[in-house]
C-alpha cells in the first residue's frame, strides 16, 4: 500500500509534466502555423511540411542514421565525463592534496568557453574524437562539481558507522560515498546533458562527418528549410527525452531519501 502511494507520488507529477509539455507543444505549433500562414516566407514553412519532412527523413532518408551517430557521440561523451567527473570530483573532495590543488583548478577552469577549444582539439584528437572530446569536456564540469560538493556535505557519521562495522574503503565507497553523491550527480548530469545536445550541434557542424548537427548544417546550405527544422526538432526532442528520463530517476531517488 505504501509503495503504491510512493509510486503515485512519482508517476503523477511525471504525467502532469508530460501533459504540460504536450500543451506547450500544441500552443507553439498553433502559433507557428499562424505565423507561417500570415508571413508566407520560405524560412517559415508550415508545420505540416516540417512534420512530413521529419517523417520521410526518419523512415526513408539519412536522418535516423544521423541520429544514431549523434546519440553514440553524446552517450560516449557522457560516459567519459561521468567516469572522469566522479573520479576527479571525489579526489578533489576527499584527498587532501586533491582538495588543495585539483579543486581550485576545476573551479577556476569551469568558466572557460570550452567550445572555443574545438579547433585545437581537432589538431590533437582528429575529426571524430575532437567532437567527443569537446562534449566530454563540457559535460565533465557539472558532474565533477556536483560530485565534489555533495561529497563534501555528506555527514562523516555515515563513514564512522562503516568504520566501526569493520568496513574497508570499498565498503565506504559502496554504501556511503556513491549513494550520497547520486542526487547531486543526477542533477549535474541533467544539466550537463542539455548542454551536451547544444554542443554536439556545434561540434558536428564544424566538420561535417554525419550526425544531426551535420544534417542541419547541410540542409541550411541547400536552403532546405523544412530539413533544418526537422533536424532541430529531432535534436530538441532527443534532448528533452534524455532530460526527462534523468529528471524522473532523480526525483524518484530524492523522494526516498530526502
Amino acid at each position: 500500500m505504501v509503495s503504491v502511494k510512493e509510486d503515485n507520488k512519482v508517476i503523477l507529477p511525471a504525467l502532469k509534466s508530460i501533459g504540460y509539455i504536450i500543451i506547450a507543444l500544441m500552443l507553439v505549433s498553433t502559433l507557428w502555423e499562424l505565423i507561417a500562414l500570415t508571413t508566407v516566407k520560405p524560412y517559415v514553412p508550415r508545420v505540416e511540411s516540417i512534420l512530413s519532412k521529419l517523417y520521410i527523413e526518419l523512415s526513408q532518408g539519412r536522418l535516423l542514421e544521423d541520429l544514431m551517430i549523434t546519440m553514440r557521440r553524446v552517450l560516449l561523451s557522457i560516459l567519459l565525463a561521468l567516469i572522469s567527473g566522479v573520479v576527479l570530483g571525489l579526489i578533489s573532495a576527499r584527498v587532501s592534496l586533491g582538495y588543495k590543488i585539483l579543486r581550485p583548478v576545476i573551479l577556476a577552469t569551469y568558466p572557460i568557453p570550452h567550445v572555443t577549444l574545438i579547433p585545437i582539439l581537432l589538431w590533437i584528437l582528429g575529426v571524430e574524437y575532437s567532437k567527443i572530446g569537446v562534449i566530454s569536456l563540457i559535460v565533465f564540469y557539472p558532474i565533477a562539481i556536483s560530485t565534489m560538493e555533495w561529497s563534501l556535505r555528506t555527514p562523516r557519521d555515515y563513514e564512522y558507522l562503516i568504520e566501526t562495522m569493520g568496513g574497508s574503503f570499498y565498503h565506504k565507497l559502496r554504501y556511503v560515498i556513491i549513494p550520497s553523491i547520486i542526487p547531486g550527480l543526477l542533477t549535474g548530469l541533467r544539466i550537463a546533458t542539455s548542454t551536451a545536445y547544444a554542443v554536439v550541434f556545434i561540434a558536428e557542424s564544424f566538420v561535417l562527418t554525419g550526425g544531426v548537427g551535420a544534417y542541419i548544417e547541410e540542409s541550411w546550405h541547400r536552403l532546405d528549410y523544412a530539413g533544418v527544422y526537422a533536424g532541430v526538432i529531432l535534436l530538441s526532442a532527443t534532448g528533452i527525452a534524455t532530460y526527462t528520463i534523468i529528471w524522473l530517476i532523480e526525483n524518484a531517488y530524492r523522494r526516498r531519501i530526502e
Partner: protein
Amino acid sequence: MRLEVRDLTFGYDSNVIFNGFSVEFKGSRLNVILGPNGVGKSTLLKLIAGIIRPHSGSILFNGESILKGSIAYIPQDNELLPWLTVYGNVELPLRIAGVNGDVRRMRVLKALEATDTLHLSSRYPKKLSGGERKRVAIARALASNTPILLLDEPTANIDPAGREIIWGILREVSRERLVITATHDISEALIIADMIYIMSGRPASIVEVLSGGEEAWSQSRRIIKLYYRH
C-alpha cells in the same frame, strides 16, 4: 567483560580534551556517562569506537586491543543510512562481515523483532520517527552481535513514550553486552543506569562513579551539584 581506558590524551590543536584520562566499564550492566554538553562525552565514545585515535594511552577490552567490528556505535544523529531501507540498514554490518544469506536474514529478522521494528523493515529512514530510528539502530547492533554497544545521547529529541521503549530495550540488551551510553540528561541517567559515571572537564575527568537505582536516587542532590560543578 571489561573495558579499560588508560591514560588517554587527546585534543584538537591547543584545546586539550583528555589529559591522562582513565576509566573502567564493566559488562552485563548499563553504564551511563553523565555530563553537561561539551565536556567530551561524544569524543570519548568516538575514541573507544576507534573513529578517532588518541595521542597517547590505550583502550583495552578484556585486557586486549579492541578488534575491528567488535563495537556497535550509534551516533546522536545520522544513525541510519538514508538510502537503505530499515532492513538494509540492519543487514549492513552482516553484509560487511560476509555473513551467509540465510543466516543473515535470520539474524536481521530476529533483531527487528527484538526491537519491535519488523513492521518497518521496508521503510526508508526519512519515514521513521526519532524513536523508531534509534530502535532500528539498536536492532542493527543486535544483528551484528558485537560485545560492545556505544550510544551517544540515545533519547535526545525523542518523545516520552519513545524514550520509555528505548530504555526498556537498552536494559534488555545490557544483560549480555557491555553497553555505554552518553547523556546530558540527569533524569535519564537516574532512571536507566546500573552505573553512573559523572564526567567533568576540561581536561575531562570522571569525578564520581555511582551505582544506579536506589543509591543514585538517594544521592540525586549530590549528582546535580557534581554535574553543574563544570
